[in-house]
């Protein structure tokens, strides 16, 4: 068991999501930074899709009731265990009674706590993710609260973890060639023009040219962007149609909305563009107030980024296994 000692609002249990039920109005949910969850789970020896704790309001602290392997991935802050600073993107062993604390990270938005054996939570429609709007999944369908106790699955891998820990070169560093750094403080987010792009004519070009700011009216459902409004050349009445995370809609006010992990399943606003799936985690790590710019991408570029990410994850999976075995054999 782990016990939540302190938490801000809207911290939830998430895995890689619940795809496949949009047709019956169920959002996919899942971590806002799925890459961090995959790597955290690999480090602690879990299946990549094991449930983790998504922390988006800080501080959060929890107590481990038994000996356990854990890793904190995602945001850039360093976690503390019983007051001792650790590094993120590193698996450690916690002893019973030790308290893990996550403070506000310096720049990024979301941290993930993975534990060996995963959070032992009932699977609903193929996922352990919390659906806040549907009030199901995860920790009783709601955010974590002080005093919550969460069961942990069996961990057969704990004996394999090297005593000093096992760390990884974080994706932002390892993949810096395919994920360009912010330019003049604006995070480049790649997107493809979507169905109604041409309705925006000149304003469509302004969409790509300007720097947008993530407004305070943003959450796991969607990011509302602030900037110079963009308008279609004619107002269009559209029937509601399917929407997925990454879709950028433009409501009548002219300030775009990017659908995120808890995306609506349908909507009727015109779609100007869609963020490529591989860039969604970077958006998930962008905080309210952060500035971003959309960069026109292509399907082949999106595919190339996807392949680079897959190679990185494969390398982390295989090398971590190899290193653990080699060190075990030398003991």
């Amino acid at each position, binding site marked *: 068991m782990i016990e939540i000692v302190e938490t801000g609002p809207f911290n939830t249990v998430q895995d890689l999501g619940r795809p496949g039920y949009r047709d019956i109005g169920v959002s996919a949910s899942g971590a806002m930074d799925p890459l961090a969850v995959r790597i955290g789970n690999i480090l602690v020896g879990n299946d990549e899709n094991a449930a983790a704790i998504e922390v988006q309001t800080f501080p959060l602290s929890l107590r481990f009731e038994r000996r356990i392997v854990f890793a904190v991935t995602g945001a*850039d802050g360093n976690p503390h265990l019983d007051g*001792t600073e650790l*590094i*993120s*993107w*590193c698996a450690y062993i916690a002893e019973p009674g030790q308290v893990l604390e996550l403070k506000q990270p310096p720049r990024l938005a979301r941290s993930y706590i993975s534990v060996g054996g995963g959070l032992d939570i009932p699977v609903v429609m193929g996922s352990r993710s919390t659906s806040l709007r549907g009030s199901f999944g995860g920790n009783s369908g709601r955010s974590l609260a002080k005093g919550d106790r969460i069961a942990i699955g069996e961990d057969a891998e704990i004996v394999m973890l*090297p005593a*000093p*820990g*096992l*760390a*990884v*070169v*974080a994706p*932002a*560093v*390892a993949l810096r060639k395919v994920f360009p750094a912010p330019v003049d403080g604006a995070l480049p987010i790649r997107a493809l023009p979507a169905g109604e792009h041409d309705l925006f004519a000149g304003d469509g070009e302004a969409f790509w040219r300007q720097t947008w700011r993530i407004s305070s009216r943003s959450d796991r459902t969607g990011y509302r962007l602030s900037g110079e409004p963009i308008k279609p050349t004619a107002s269009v009445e559209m029937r509601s149609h399917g929407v997925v995370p990454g879709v950028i809609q433009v409501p009548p006010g002219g300030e775009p909305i990017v659908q995120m992990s808890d995306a609506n399943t349908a909507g009727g606003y015109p779609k100007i563009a869609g963020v490529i799936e591989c860039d969604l985690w970077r958006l998930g790590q962008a905080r309210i107030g952060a500035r971003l710019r959309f960069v026109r991408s292509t399907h082949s570029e999106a595919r190339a980024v996807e392949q680079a990410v897959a190679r*990185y994850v494969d*390398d*982390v999976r295989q*090398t*971590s296994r*190899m*290193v653990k075995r*080699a*060190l075990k*054999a*030398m003991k």
Partner: protein
Amino acid sequence: MSSIDFSDPATIAFLTDALTAAGVDGLEISRPGGQLRIVVAGNGGARISSAEATPHAPGSASAVVKAPMAGRFCVEHPAASAEPQNLPRSVSDADIVGFVGVGHILLPLRAGRSGVLTRLLAEPGALVGFGDPLVEIELPS
């Protein structure tokens, strides 16, 4: 005396092969700088352990952190945006004094002792072998 480096993986591999070929169960070498023990297991696979003795320089004692396996020696976490850590600096036993990198995996190197990290014994970024000395920690007298 010869100056064979018994912490060199190639030397260990060569010795292990030689022992296996000769049908010898194991070998133990003790020298002032450390100890190497190779035990040839019955059904393939040898067990190797090496331990460093603390070398004594006149007037001060120091400990050496060695590479737990072959890889690339990294002094800092690649994601660290912090300023480079200067030497000498105080470390406590649980502090991470560097990493051995294998692909994208990083093995943290713990100081193991409290003292003053005085110098690096390997070039940052260099490929190091199992048992190679990486950093020196001067122990409080």
